[in-house]
């Protein structure tokens, strides 16, 4: 049974894993720069999910009904929804930073205080969605039906899975290139490495922080689009919680503060989780994820690739 489904699970796991990875990058960037677990990042993702969902509704799609559009139109609509989701999530991340984190930074608050404001912010966002949209998940809107394109060892690879994995990896490389090759990215790495010295050298720390939040938010928005394209659950007010924990686990797994670690951790987590599901049954999926995390941390206490956003640290 497990062996029969091995390749199918691997492929499916890679698709899930890319979504984890995109969210994980947001955690990892903020952690690298501020040493802060941005607990509200999962809510940024949820904002992206609702942004994408509302765009679908605004474009005239309805849950359940298969769209009757030429492929070009569908791609344009998906892109539009994705852009809306990314803009909303990015903006929300910047607002979150302003409202919940910056005042604390100004006051040199202890580290746990940041965690508590993050928790508070995430309650607020969740409850706003619950009040406006109720606690039942929205229906799923599928613009693209999954269709097998080719087979790997007899396991079908669908068009959705190809799009998601390729697009995620492309976005990852864009983010990685931004952090490692551009001037602004150098600022991000400098602040991650040594904030005080970076500031002395003329890096605007506040701006770097805003950029990291923005980048993380935008990637979460993209993850939101992929989430709605492939994962059976619809948009729901608390949908980000478990996903957020897993994405954070993925970031830790790969080595938090390390962009490549986030990608690797996300993919590994997605794949192993799917193996676990097929070995032990669906109920054990999350158990496998957490056991994997604990297991890896026991042998590699700083994650698989170690923590290093500032490269020169190695």
């Amino acid at each position, binding site marked *: 049974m497990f062996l029969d489904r091995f390749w199918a699970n691997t492929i499916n796991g890679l698709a899930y894993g890319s979504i984890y990875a995109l969210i994980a990058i947001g955690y990892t960037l903020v952690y690298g720069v501020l*040493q802060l677990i941005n607990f509200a990042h999962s809510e940024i993702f949820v904002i992206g999910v609702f942004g994408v969902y509302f765009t679908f509704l605004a474009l005239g799609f309805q849950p359940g009904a298969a769209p009757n559009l030429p492929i070009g139109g569908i791609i344009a609509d998906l892109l539009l929804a994705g852009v809306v989701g990314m803009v909303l999530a990015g903006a929300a991340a910047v607002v979150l930073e302003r409202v919940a984190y910056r005042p604390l930074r100004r*006051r*040199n608050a202890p580290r746990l205080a940041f965690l508590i404001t993050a928790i508070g912010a995430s309650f607020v966002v969740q409850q706003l969605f619950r009040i406006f949209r109720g606690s039942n998940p929205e229906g799923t809107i599928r613009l693209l039906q999954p269709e097998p394109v080719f087979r790997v060892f007899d396991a079908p690879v669908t068009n959705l899975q190809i799009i998601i994995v390729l697009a995620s990896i492309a976005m990852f490389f864009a983010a990685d290139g931004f952090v490692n090759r551009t001037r602004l990215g150098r600022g991000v790495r400098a602040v991650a490495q040594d904030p005080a010295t970076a500031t002395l050298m003329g890096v605007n720390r506040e701006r770097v922080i805003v950029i990291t939040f923005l980048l993380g938010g935008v990637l979460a928005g993209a993850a939101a689009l992929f989430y709605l394209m492939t994962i059976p659950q619809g948009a729901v007010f608390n949908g980000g919680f478990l996903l957020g924990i897993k994405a954070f686990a993925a970031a830790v797994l790969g080595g938090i503060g390390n962009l490549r670690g986030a990608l690797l951790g996300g993919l590994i987590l997605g794949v192993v989780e799917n193996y676990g599901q097929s070995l032990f049954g669906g109920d054990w999926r999350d158990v496998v994820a957490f056991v994997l995390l604990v297991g890896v941390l026991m042998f590699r206490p*700083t994650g698989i690739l170690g923590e290093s956003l500032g490269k020169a640290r190695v």
Partner: protein
Amino acid sequence: MTTTIRTRRGPSSGSSGSTMRDRWAEVSRWWNARSRPEQWGLLVPVVVLIYFLPVINPPIITTEPATDFSIALFNAAVFALIAIGLNVVIGQAGLLDLGYVGFFAIGAYCAALLSSPDSELGVRFPWLAIVPIAMVITMISGVILGTPTLRLRGDYLAIVTLGFGELVRLLADNIDPLRGNRGFQDIARPGGSYPDGTPLFTQTDAQGFYWLAVTIIIIVLFLMGNLERSRVGRAWIAVREDEDAAELTGVPTYRFKIWAFAIGAAVGGLSGTLFAAQVGFVNNQRFDVTTSILYLAAVVLGGQGNKVGVIVGAFLVSYIPDRFQFEPEYRFLVFGLALIILMIFRPQGLLGMRQHLLAYGRQAYQKLFGAGTGVAPTGLTASSRGRGDPSETTPDDHAGTSPRGGGE
């Protein structure tokens, strides 16, 4: 950069919280200057008042008619007990534990398995026998969780404990003998009755349970106080303030961290049995990570490391949603906003007090600076308030300009 922040912060920090802060500092200084018997004398009426709260049922404070006041108080008391236990881990030893609800769950499930007729073990232990068993089991689970994970630091520990909390809940979901959502009925209650013969501990009237919980809290506080003043407590604070320095000066940090975990876990288990006994029913619904985060919120809100503070914090976190229930829609919204606002204006928590090592040896300090003068030496106030210069560096280090962020 640090300098700019300091200067910018200078005038503003003096404005908002400072009056309240000074008042608290004054109160705590005055309190510390009292002798032990005097302190006890002042405490007794307060404690008596706390005991009689459900009987008095004061009109504005009461949570009725929405929630029975004695039940609200009992829940607050259990919450306070949990916060005291978690405070050992977070406030004293400085270990961020996000999965504390796991221990609470283990305690509750111990009570369920050992006394419910639904349990496959087929035993019906009395509640009093369950308590020590549950505490030992949770303590062992704390050691089991701690042994591999306490070598991790900071945020890694946080995520692993979070994973542990989720694991406990998922196991309760998925392991058949733990009965998932169906749960266990008829969990044993402590015996005892009022003079007129009505049973003291029932599900509908939590007055007896509230008294029991307060009594347990007092005992636990007493034991914790002694523990904190002992070598163990000093070791915890040393670990919290600077783990490397502690290790270098010969404190076996790993061992004391496991101690903190185990003792915190045992208190969590104790509160779990108490909760299970009052509700009389345990299933998998009460133990999600959100609950764990509420515990953390209680500790940080009240002021980590400050026992009175965490009790106040726990009381607020448990009591406010019960009291202002009329708009259940907005309950958590308001709670979330309150958390943000409170943290922005009082990042140290309501009664924040990060005691430093010096603040502890009160007698030692008084010997050094002249005992019995009644006027606490400035050094003591600065350190016991946790607002003086020595603490200034600690939050700063953690706030992001941490040297650790650069190193490795």
